[in-house]
């Protein structure tokens, strides 16, 4: 039965997407189909209530606001300034300014709890600049898609909150536990880019001419507005003035001020930025609504839960259990988003994880790194949708560009298994055990 459900669902989804049906509509259709075929639930009512409750959501409001912030910044000289200021310092680094994608996502992840918002905001600033400077498109897309998943791991993080609530784990501890693995992923991504850039010269443009140190410093002044912006937004959270969601609004206000001061703000840029953000937000919002309908469908059918308990019945030891779960999460990650996977499986998985003697705090971090991968695997990967919406490039091409980063996350999981202290040491050191 589960096999039939999986084949029908995935088959219908791939088929409808190949037909050229919009992603949101394809998800909606597949969810409607599977509810009708495999459950006795009144389908229409579930569709309406899933659509309503997933979009009438306060934490989700950070998404349009952060996208809007990206739209404002990209319409100003600020993004060019950011790269001008960084270029002289990074010219010797193999991979050059592509690292801005990775570090930019890492920094922005400390502001935003979502991966899609990180992808949209950083990408809106970096993609046009990197393209203009002649960087390879697939390297740009790959680093952006991969690094934006850090939004989930580096605190604040919506998915760690969801896990913390359903596993009754301390959210404060989980947040701290995400920091070191987050930095490790950044290091892995940067290391990969350096190696790639060293071996294939055509991925990055020729290094810009060397300039004297004093001139470097002068150019660095151009970084000041962006740095102030970042400090302001992060500061508003850590000074206790804004919740992580409200910080998005602070970000827009500060962006408008900075852009206004630099003389780039006009009614037209304001309006175009707003409408651009609204369109992207509506595209993602409809996918969110449809995806939550599919999640509800999967909840009623019980496919994720059955898969999880099937693994549980195998009576595996801890490393084998983790390996098997990783495969299940990768499969589920193709059709569901990360938060949904956590919601649908935690109740079943947690008891077996604890029975195998695995620390639930460590498991939360493992889980987030694993479901991060779902953001960049087709057919349903939110980061892929964001980048397609932003650049018009095809989803499959973006997914191919992101594939090495998928593999790097697998490496990260391996490292987490071998060195569990990567996740558990810092929270123990900071909060006591």
């Amino acid at each position, binding site marked *: 039965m589960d096999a039939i459900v999986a084949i029908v669902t995935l088959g219908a989804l791939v088929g409808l997407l*190949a037909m050229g049906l919009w992603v949101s*509509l394809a998800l909606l259709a597949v969810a409607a189909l599977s509810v009708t075929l495999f459950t006795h639930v009144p389908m229409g009512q579930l569709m309406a209530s899933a659509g309503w409750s997933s*979009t*009438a959501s306060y934490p989700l409001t950070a998404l349009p606001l952060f996208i809007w912030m990206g739209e404002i910044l990209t319409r100003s000289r600020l993004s060019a300034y950011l790269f001008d200021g960084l270029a002289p310092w990074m010219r010797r680094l193999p991979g050059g300014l592509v690292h801005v994608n990775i570090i930019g996502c890492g920094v922005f992840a400390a502001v935003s709890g979502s991966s899609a918002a990180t992808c949209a905001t950083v990408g809106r600033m970096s993609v046009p600049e990197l393209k203009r400077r002649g960087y390879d498109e697939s390297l740009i897309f790959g680093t952006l898609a991969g690094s934006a998943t850090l939004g989930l791991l580096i605190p604040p993080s919506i998915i760690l909150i969801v896990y913390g609530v359903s596993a009754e784990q301390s959210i404060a501890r989980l947040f701290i536990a995400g920091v070191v693995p987050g930095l490790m992923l950044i290091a892995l991504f940067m290391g990969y880019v350096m190696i790639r850039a060293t071996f294939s010269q055509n991925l990055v443009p020729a290094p810009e001419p060397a300039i004297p140190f004093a001139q470097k410093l002068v150019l660095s002044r151009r970084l000041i507005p962006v740095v102030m912006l970042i400090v302001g937004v992060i500061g508003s959270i850590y000074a206790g003035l804004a919740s992580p969601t409200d910080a998005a*609004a602070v970000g827009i206000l500060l962006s408008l001020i900075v852009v206004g001061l630099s003389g780039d703000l006009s009614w037209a840029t304001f309006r175009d930025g*707003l409408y651009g953000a609204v369109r992207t937000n509506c595209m993602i919002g409809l996918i969110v609504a449809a995806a939550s309908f599919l999640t509800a469908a999967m909840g009623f059918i019980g496919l994720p839960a059955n898969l999880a308990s099937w693994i549980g019945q195998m009576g595996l030891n801890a490393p084998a259990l983790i390996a098997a779960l990783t495969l299940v999460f990768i499969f589920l990650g193709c059709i569901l988003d990360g938060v949904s996977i956590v919601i649908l499986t935690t109740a079943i998985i947690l008891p077996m994880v604890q029975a195998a003697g695995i620390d639930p705090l460590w498991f939360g971090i493992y889980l987030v790194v694993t479901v991060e991968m779902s953001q960049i695997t087709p057919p349903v990967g939110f980061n892929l949708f964001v980048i397609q919406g932003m650049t*018009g490039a095809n*989803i499959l091409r973006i997914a191919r560009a992101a594939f090495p980063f998928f593999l790097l996350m697998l490496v990260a999981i391996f490292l987490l298994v071998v060195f569990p202290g990567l996740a558990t040491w810092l929270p123990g050191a900071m909060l006591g055990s």
Partner: protein
Amino acid sequence: MRRFLDAVYRMAEFLAALQVVAILVIMLLQVGFGLVDRFAQTLGKSAPGLSVPAYAEFCGFLLAGSIFLGIAGALRAGAHVRVTLVLGVMPSPLARAMQITTSASACILIGYFTICAAEMGLQSWQFGDRSLGTVSVPMWIPQVPMVLGLAIMTAALADLTLTFLRNAAPPWGETDGYGGE
């Protein structure tokens, strides 16, 4: 008819944008009130404790309204993502047939969604469902924009199907093809 429909799409998208602005304003007010409290306490005065009542819930309502009111405009702008790999390699009569099929079935699906959402709103009204937060709001009120937006999306998809049937260019322009690649 053309001008009427275009005006409807534009109006809906304008309302969607307005709701995003409203979210921004509410949040900034909330952060501002917090700042006032902090400032008062630093000066050793008692905090006035102002806040936007039920602001998180209202932001959620505005977001849902904004998303659904804006989806038709996003469709017209070619912002909804899709995979155009197969469409791109098809001979053009077949590609056209696929375009017609997909937009017609999308129209039916969203039409059905509209009816279900309307039923949900109707039930909220009949049973007197109320919001959860500090301010008591009948739930059907924030659900109206959702129904309205879905109805306009249905119209936009019917509009698009007719466009393809007439073999005319889609509203997002012919150059960038299918809203993708």
